[in-house]
Every structure is written in C-alpha cells, then in structure tokens.
C-alpha cells in the first residue's frame, strides 16, 4: 500500500488507478475545502499543492501523489492565517466563495515564491494575472483579488490583525464554509440522473428492474405522464447507489426504448411553418419560465408564443411613422437587427441537493436561491406539512437566477431518499450544469428608432424573438417601455420554442439583450443627430436617477477626451450605455432581531448566494447599535427561520432592510423598558452595555409598504405607463409575491476598449460604472457586486456563447474550456461610482444592486468598439472571428 502526506498526516492511497487526488482529499479525508467544478483542469477550484507546486487535483491520479506532500486549503491557514488569506478577507476578494480555496492555494504559492525571490516588490497586474490564469471566478471577484495578492506580496498583511467587510469571509478563505455538495451524512447515497439522448422522443418503455437488482441501488422514474422527452438531456430516471461508480453502472443497466419524434432546434428553424411542434396544446403547461415572475396570457401558435405586446403604446402609429420614414429615406431613421448569444449561468457550485428523511420529516440541503419558497414548493408537491420540511443552504456557490426553482436535482434527491430510506445527494456534473441547468436565451432583435424633427424621440419599435428552448415567457422588447419615453412605441416579444433545454431567469432577464440593441440604436441616433451620446440620453431619458448619472458620466475625463475612430493596428475607443432594473421587494418578509445571551441575533429565511446578505444585515444592525458587524450573529440559509426573500429580482436588500430597522427600533425600546440598570452616564457604548445585561428579547417585524412621499419624478415605473402597468404590477404581486416599488435602480457605464485589428482581439482597458441604487448598505460588498456585474457583462459581450449541434441540439460547450467565462487577466480597471440618492421613500433608503449593474455592459462595449473601428458589431459575443469578419476588405491597417 502506498501513502502520501496530506497537511502533514500520512494517509493511505487506494490501488484503483482511476482514483484521483481530489477523491482522496474530498471523499476519503473529508477535506471539502477543495472543490470539484470543471473536472477538466480549467477552473482551478480543485487546486492543491503537491510538493509545493499547485496542481489540478481533479486530474491528478491519486497514485501520482505517492511519497509526496500534499497541502490543501485546510493546511494553509491551519495554524495561522496566511497573509494571502487575510488580504482576501480585507479586500473582499470573494463573493460566493466556491472558487476561493483554489485561488487561495495558488496565490499563497505565488506569494511565497515571489517574496522569496523578489522581496517586498509589488507584482504588477500582468504578473498576477498570468500567475492566476488557471482559475475562474464566476462572481467576478477579480478586481479585489488583484489588490489582495499585490498587498500580500508587499507584506501589508503580515500582522495578526485582520478585518473583513464580509462576515463569513474567514470560513470561505480557509475552506471551512460548507456548501450543499460538501454535505455528507452517514450512509449517504450518490444519485445520478439518466437523461434523454434524443432531442424529441416518446419513451415507449422504461425498465428499471435490472438497475434495481444491483446491490444497494435505488431507481425512480422522472418521466412526465405524457412520456415525451423534448430535448437532449431531459431527465428520464434517477438512480442512487453507495458510490458514483456503482450509480454509473446502475444507469447503464436501465433499459429504455423510445420512438424518435421529429425535432427542431433553435431560433431560425423553430420559426419555420413546417417545424415540428414541441408542445401541443395539452402539454403547454410543461414549458419552463425564463423570467423572474409568472407570465401573462399570450397567443401561442405552433412553436411561437407571442406577440406579447402589452407594453406598446400607439403601436400602429409607431409602425406607420417608421414605414413613412423608411420610404422617405429619412437619414435619421435607425434600423438594425441585433443578435445576442445564449449565456449560461455557469455557477461554480453545480445544482445540488441532499435529501434526508427522519421518519416523516424531510431535511433538504440545497444549492438554492430560495430556501423559504423551496420549502413551500416541496411541501405542496409532496403533500407534506410545512413544519416537516426544512431546507438548508448555509453557503451557495453562485446562482445568478438558475437556482430559483424546484429543480430536477431536488426532485431526484427527495424521491430517491424516500425510496432508498437513506440520505441521497444529487449534484450535477459540469456537462449537466452547462447544458440543462438553465441559461439566458439568445435573441434576435429588430429595432427601428425614429427621432423627431425637433430632436425628440418620435417612435421606437423593437421586435424580439427569444430562443427559449422548452420554455416561455421572455420579456426583452417590453423592457424598452420603461426607459426613453417616445410619442409611440411598438414593442413585441416572441418566444421561439424548440427542442432545446429550457432557459431560465438570468440576472436581469431580458435586460442585457434589450440594452445591447436599444443602446446601440440610441448611440447611432446620436451620431446621426451629431449630438454627444450622453447629452442625447439626458434629453430623451428623464429618469431622475439616471439624470444624475449622466451628469457624472459626462464629467469623466475619459469621456471628455473621446476621439473619433482611428486607423492602425491597435485602435482605442470609448463607449457608454445605460441600464436599469425594476426596484422589487417581497411582501410578508419577516426579520427577527433578538438579544440572546447578551448578543444581538438577526434571523430570516433568506440565503447568501455570494451577494453579501449576511453582511447587509450585520452592517445595518451594527450601525444602529453602534457595534461592530462581528458583534452581530446573523442566521440565514434555513427555511425554519421567519419567512425571508428569495435571492432574485435584486430584492433581498430592499426586502430585509425595512423590517430589520423596524425590529431594531422596537428591540431598543423593549430593552430600555426592561433594563434594570441604565448605562453609565457618558458611556461611549451604551448599547453594548445594555445588550450585555439584557434579558432575552425577540422582535419579529414584517416588511411594510414604502412611504408615499417620493422625490420629484420618482414614481413606480409601472404606474407611469398607465393601466397596463398597474395590471402588470398587480399580477406580479398576486402570482409571484413580488412588489414593484417607486424609483428605478439604474446604471450608466463608460467603457474604453482597444481592438487589435490583426488578431481580432478586444481588450477592455477601463470601465467606469455609475450606479444609483440608493444608500449603500455594505459598501465593500456592493463594490464587489458592481465589479462582478461588469465582468459578467464583459463575458456576455466578448466571450460567452452556448454552441450547439445544429441538428440534434447537443450542447457542445458543455465544459469550461469551451464555454468561456472571463478570467482574471481579462479584467479591466474598474471605477465604481455610487450615487446614493433616489430612494428616500424606502426605510433604510437601499434597494438591490445585482441586476441594474450588469444591464448596460455589453452595449457599452459595442459602442466603444464602434468608436474605435467605425464598424457596428450587431452580434455578441464579439469574438475574434467576428472582428476580423467585420473588418475584412476594409482599410488595411
């Protein structure tokens, strides 16, 4: 038997040649700080040191570690935190934390070797970017990672003091934070899902007997009652077995016969008259949902659902005016067709659930954006008492909208656990994560924009066809109603359904594609009107939040020095764009603030998907009591706590802050009333003294309505568009438990790029992002979110696209090397400007930042590229192939 040393302890290695080092670390030694993400050596989440060198443990055969010394993240900070760990904590160089252990391991090795050879010199961004090029962070924490690594190398974190703006940061930099995939109950089984190989088929026989006959194997059917599968990867059955290898063998043993049905794949084929129909009338309710809220009624013929055109106003007028302008060759009429790609959420923690029954009580650990609502959905689906279901998500490795429903991983885990009478874990592999776990649908947008002769906006027409797969309810064009008022708007949304996996909500659903098209059209109009693009937006967009952001943007030096397009190989350009999202909050959200055993404890059944909810609560309460955030215990991630909001629609902060503040006020009053001894006169910490001596008191408060008095121009954007908006708002509240508040969270971005016209490469040099989401509750974390939103937007603009086989719909980009998310070296300098006004009517004055901050990025990049090379790129991602194609035959550099 061979051995290796892991974190200083001798451990035995199995003889199995297929055992990998990560299996030993995670499964045998339960060192779950090391994460399995891509399984292909691309993302670096599994990085460990072997004899001091960082390696990908997901690829390294376990036997190759024989006789060597392995150090995992747990071994790095075991005695004393490494300066890199302290720097990551202090700079908030992390969000969801799932990639963090890998970054920490690599960065400590880099930092140690840098300091050994270079002393106190500070590594450049380029040097850090190259050293960490084997790591990916989907939240986009790169900007802070640069600063953390540089400061650690410079010796600025050698002392013992460390402060972290994110209260769970220590757990994330040491690998102690437990995610759903890390849960390991005694006797836990591993569940796998059998998925369709056909794009469209009727399953004529599903025989689980041979699989069930295998030792320790449980199998359940996941087929719908119509027995039809509508995309490659649709779940058919699930198996559970003591380990992954036997579960795989059980999958192979399942006997399946099917009758292939004609299939149709994608936006163009799906629109053809003779395309096979994906959902007949009876099965339409099986379609998924690509938005954050439930959809309204819409026409639905064959594979085309739409138009949804409720947000049009004087649509016919708009069409007529555009037609007339076209016939008159009106030079001001801007018309173009834009195409956006399918963007995968690519959460680093896969969709995962661990179900355990204790008698009739179900405990479910889930990687979810909605612990409370998921509990309710499970109770309803399985007819269980609400108090017998508990959903736990202590840490969630990214969600971005994809983990906001009761998904197959949860259904399979519950049904397998019930059948097997044993705990079952179902965790998607990377291929599943990048194919069937949801995506932002690709879209085709036809835009016509007509300025009036007086320089106003006369007509705007947007027709969007979204590539929603086996799902519906895309709203892209409709979002163009709530910005740039015009004399007439013709806005139509269509879902194009085909035999592809269902899309899902993704960070500002519909927002980025709308902005990519409309913001380029506005830019083009500014060119034709010979008006500065910011000045034109200031003229056409009266929203008070954005008016202030336009003033900020037009004052930026980079904008004032903007030049027309250039010649030569490398060409620089500057572009800008605007984005917004609705201010949403969730009614009935409850927060308990209590004093227990002399400490303040805040509890609500929400979750932190990397957005910083714990710190928003801790910072807010600490400010009220004049304490440190670390003095506050925050309990979230557990459905048994008071009803909390889902992490979607940027609604968490705006839902929890008001009841928290109300509860604090009442708690203060109760404490003062019950205090047997008042604080010493002149005490500089009266609340600290009171809390320490207070009997236990708990106050639960519910999110109330916002104040009616708003600043001039601040209204509900839905109210502003009249009756239909009010109906829409009522429906959101009634069917989706989401309220639309007054005021519009907004973002204006100014971006500088450099285009290499020979190699088609676009380098983003600088991003200035101005954000108006009210008062910033947790500044360092809000900055992290703002930077991450830009980085995800850059991925959308430049790199990310799901690629398919055009016939079968097989997702070809089902690994992290082919689905390309931004890396640290692709990260520009990011300047974040917060305009904190605009939400005085909200208790606490804060609304969410997550979505508004990512909407304008792709459009600003495209406008910057146009400014650089004089060509408008109408299709994203703007990859090298598209740049060289666009420049082909033009002036050679």
């Amino acid at each position, binding site marked *: 038997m061979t051995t290796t040393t892991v974190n200083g302890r001798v451990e035995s290695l199995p003889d199995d040649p297929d055992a990998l080092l990560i299996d030993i670390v995670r499964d045998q030694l339960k060192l779950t700080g090391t994460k399995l993400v891509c*399984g292909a050596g691309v993302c670096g989440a599994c990085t460990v040191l072997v004899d001091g060198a960082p*390696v990908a443990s997901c690829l390294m055969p376990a036997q190759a570690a024989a006789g060597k010394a392995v150090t995992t993240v747990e071994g790095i900070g075991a005695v004393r935190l490494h300066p890199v760990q302290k720097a990551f904590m202090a700079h908030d160089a992390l969000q969801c934390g799932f990639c963090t252990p890998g970054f920490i391991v690599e960065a400590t090795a880099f930092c140690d070797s840098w300091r050994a050879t270079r002393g106190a010199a500070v590594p450049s961004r380029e040097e850090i*970017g190259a050293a960490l090029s084997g790591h990916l962070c989907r939240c986009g924490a790169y900007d802070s990672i640069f600063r953390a690594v540089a400061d650690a190398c410079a010796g600025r974190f050698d002392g013992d003091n460390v402060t972290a703006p994110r209260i769970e940061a220590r757990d994330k930099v040491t690998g102690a934070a437990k995610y759903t995939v890390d849960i390991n109950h005694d006797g836990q089984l591993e569940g796998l899902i059998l998925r369709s190989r056909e794009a469209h088929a009727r399953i004529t026989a599903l025989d689980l007997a041979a699989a069930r006959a295998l030792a320790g194997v449980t199998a359940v059917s996941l087929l719908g009652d119509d027995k039809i599968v509508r995309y490659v990867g649709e779940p058919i059955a699930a198996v559970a077995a003591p380990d992954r290898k036997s579960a795989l063998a059980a999958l192979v043993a399942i006997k399946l016969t099917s009758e292939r049905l004609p299939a149709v794949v994608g936006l163009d084929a799906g629109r053809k008259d003779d395309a096979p129909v994906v959902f007949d009338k009876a099965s339409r309710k099986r379609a998924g949902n690509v938005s954050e809220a439930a959809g309204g009624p819409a026409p639905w013929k064959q594979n085309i659902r739409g138009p949804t055109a409720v947000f049009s106003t004087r649509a016919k007028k708009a069409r007529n005016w555009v037609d007339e302008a076209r016939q008159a060759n009106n030079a001001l009429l801007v018309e173009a067709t834009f195409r956006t790609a399918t963007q995968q959420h690519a959460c680093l923690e896969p969709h995962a659930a661990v179900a355990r029954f204790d008698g009739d009580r179900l405990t479910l650990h889930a990687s979810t954006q909605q612990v409370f609502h998921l509990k309710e959905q499970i109770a309803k689906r399985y007819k269980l008492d609400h108090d017998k279901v508990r959903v736990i998500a202590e840490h969630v490795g990214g969600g971005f909208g994809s983990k906001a429903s009761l998904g197959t991983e949860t259904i399979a885990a519950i049904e397998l656990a019930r059948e097997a009478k044993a705990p079952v874990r179902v965790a998607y592999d990377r291929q599943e994560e990048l194919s069937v776990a949801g995506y932002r649908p690709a879209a085709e947008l036809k835009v016509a924009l007509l300025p009036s002769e007086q320089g106003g906006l006369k007509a705007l027409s947007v027709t969007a066809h979204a590539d929603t797969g086996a799902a519906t309810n895309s709203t892209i064009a409709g979002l163009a109603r709530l910005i740039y008022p015009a004399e007439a708007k013709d806005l139509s949304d269509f879902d194009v359904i085909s035999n592809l996996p269902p899309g899902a909500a993704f960070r500002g659903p519909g927002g980025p594609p709308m902005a990519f098209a409309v913001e380029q059209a506005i830019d083009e109009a500014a060119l034709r009107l010979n008006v500065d693009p910011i000045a034109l937006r200031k003229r056409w967009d009266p929203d008070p939040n954005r008016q202030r952001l336009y003033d900020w943007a037009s004052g930026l030096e980079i904008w004032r020095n903007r030049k027309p397009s250039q010649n030569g190989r490398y060409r620089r350009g500057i572009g800008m764009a605007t984005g917004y999202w609705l201010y949403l909050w969730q009614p009935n959200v409850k927060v308990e603030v209590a004093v227990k055993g002399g400490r303040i404890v805040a509890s609500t059944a929400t979750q932190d998907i990397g957005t910083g909810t714990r710190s928003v609560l801790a910072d807010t309460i600490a400010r009220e009591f004049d304490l440190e955030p670390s003095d506050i215990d925050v309990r979230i991630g557990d459905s048994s706590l008071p009803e909390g909001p889902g992490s979607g629609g940027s609604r968490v902060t705006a839902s929890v802050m008001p009841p928290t503040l109300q509860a604090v006020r009442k708690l203060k009053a109760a404490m003062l009333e019950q205090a047997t001894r008042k604080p010493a006169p002149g005490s500089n910490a009266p609340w600290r003294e009171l809390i320490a001596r207070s009997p236990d008191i708990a106050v639960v408060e519910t999110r109330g309505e916002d104040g009616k008095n708003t600043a001039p121009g601040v209204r509900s954007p839905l109210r502003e568009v009249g009756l239909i908006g009010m109906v829409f708002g009522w429906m959101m509240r009634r069917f989706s438990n989401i309220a639309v508040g007054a005021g519009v969270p907004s973002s204006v971005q100014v971006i500088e790029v450099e285009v290499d016209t020979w*190699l088609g490469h676009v380098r983003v040099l600088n991003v200035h992002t101005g954000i108006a989401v009210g008062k910033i509750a947790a500044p360092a974390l809000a900055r992290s979110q703002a930077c991450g939103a830009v980085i995800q937007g850059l991925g959308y603009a430049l790199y990310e696209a799901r690629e398919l086989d055009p016939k079968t719909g097989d997702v070809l980009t089902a690994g992290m090397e082919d689905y390309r998310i931004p*890396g640290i070296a692709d990260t520009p300098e990011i300047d974040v400007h917060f305009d904190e006004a605009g939400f005085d009517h909200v208790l606490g004055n804060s609304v969410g930042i997550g979505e508004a901050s990512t909407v304008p990025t792709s459009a600003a990049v495209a406008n910057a590229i146009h400014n650089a090379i004089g060509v408008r790129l109408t299709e994203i991602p703007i990859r090298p192939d598209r740049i060289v194609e666009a420049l082909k035959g033009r002036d050679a550099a």
Partner: protein
Amino acid sequence: MSVATADAISAPEYRAAGTDLSERRRSGLSCGAVIDLTASPDTIGIAWGADGAARIGALTAIAAIASDARLAQAYPGITAAAQGLATPQIRHMATLGGNLAQRSRCWYFRNPQIACLKKGGTDCPARAGNHLYHVAFDLGPCVAPHPSTMAMALLAYDAKVTTDRRSGLSITDLLGDGSNGAADNLLAPGERIERIELPAPLAGERALYKRAISRSYAEWPLVEICVRAVISGGTFQQVHIAAGGIAPVPLRLTASAAALEGKPANAATIAQAAAPAASGAKPLPMTGYKLELLTGLVRDVVERIAL
C-alpha cells in the same frame, strides 16, 4: 450524468501525468487498462550534446521546459510555446510526451455520447455540424485541429522523436499528414515516446511563439505559430514558420518562409509575406476567419522578431 453510448476507447492507454486521460476516464470515453509510465534517466530531464543540441525526455514536465534558462537561450520558441499552453497548474503536471500524444479536443470527440471517426464512427459530425473552432486547412476526413502546441513548436525546429521502438521520427512521421481521421498520431499500439532530439540551434537565430485567442490566457489556440529566423545584414536568411490550430496536424508555412528568405527585414516585406500563409487553405464554412488570424499572426510575430 451521461452514459457513454458512442464507442468508447477500450484499448489500453499509457498515462504520463493524466491531464488529458483523467478527463476522458471520468467521462467514460476511455475505459481500457491504464499503464502508468515511470520515468528513467533517459525519459526525464534535459540533456545537452557537445554540439549544443538538446535532448528532452518525454516525461519532462512542461513547466520544467518553460522555465529552463539554457533551453530558453538555445530554443526560445520551445520555451515560449511551453509557457503559452494550458494553465500553470497543468504545466506543473503535464509532460512533453503527453502533450504530443494527447487526444483531440474536438467537442464532438469529447462528448461520450456522440460517435465520430476517432471513436470508431463512420463520419465526422463536426464537418456537417458546428465546427467553429475547427480546421481551415481541410486535409482529411476529420476536421479537428491537432491539439499539441509542443508538436507545432517542435516542427518549427525539425525535432526528431525517439520511441521505445523507433528513432529519428520527424513530427510528420509521428502525427501523419492529416489524412487519417481515426487517429491523433501514428504511434503503433503500445508504442510510447521516450525522448525528443532537437538539432543544434542556428547561429544567431531568433524565435517567438504566439497564439491568437479570445481571452488573455488559458484557451486552446484559434491559431498559433512559432517562427524562427536568422537575420543578418538586414536580410532574412533562414526562416522556419510552423502553425497550429488550423489543420489536423501542425503545418509548416513554407510559402511565407520562402517569401521572406533573402529579402530585407522590413515591414513591407513582412506584410507581403504574410498573405501566402493561407495558401493551400481549404476553410470550412465557419472557419474562414482563421485565415485572417493566421496572416495577422505571421505578420505580428515576424515583425516582432525582425523589427
């Protein structure tokens, strides 16, 4: 989870560091026996002949090649290629021999549920399907570009390969001409690479390597090239250009090299010599852009060497 339904590879496979094989084992694509290679003095490390020629053992780590100062002096194109491939963690593990003998990165090949020529299938699904990252020189039935950056750089250096059975193989002898779509190399079953021999460097030669990708790092090349040149008296003397990412095997760009040799080392010559880089190309419907990148890359790298 997917179950491999296409023909998996059930023949025994050698394993050096496993950076390619482990992923194929996990996906079920490789399911035969695994034979671990163990290093001997002859198969690991860099040795030097009296004439200044280097010999690199097949089990030498890519990172060791990338950081070897003497190698960087004598064969800068080799060390630059080693520095430019994969990620730091992979370079610490992966070996030179493994890099040469790795299997295709084609997204159809890597999907265990799709049949293809390299998995015993009868046709290439990428050809009629989605071949965005595939060849622009259509030299055989399979349209996947060869994945080995080191093979491309070694081709520029006229390196010779020694296996446990044969010696003196050129890179073309090792990888073929692209007409065999079923294989990624021409090693016989059970044959393994032992070492690589590089000819002594030319007096005064310079060399550079570069890949065109969409992001900054850690991406398989859309196009990559390695250029060696001797410039004396302001004139290109000897020029060797190899390119990868564009054909089923690495290619020598002889037309561009010929257009440079004997000409003055200036921007005009270089611009003129870049265009013939694409001569003989047969792009697929989605890969025409690779020719633009190829000529851009030749111009870029030769300029950096010469100017």
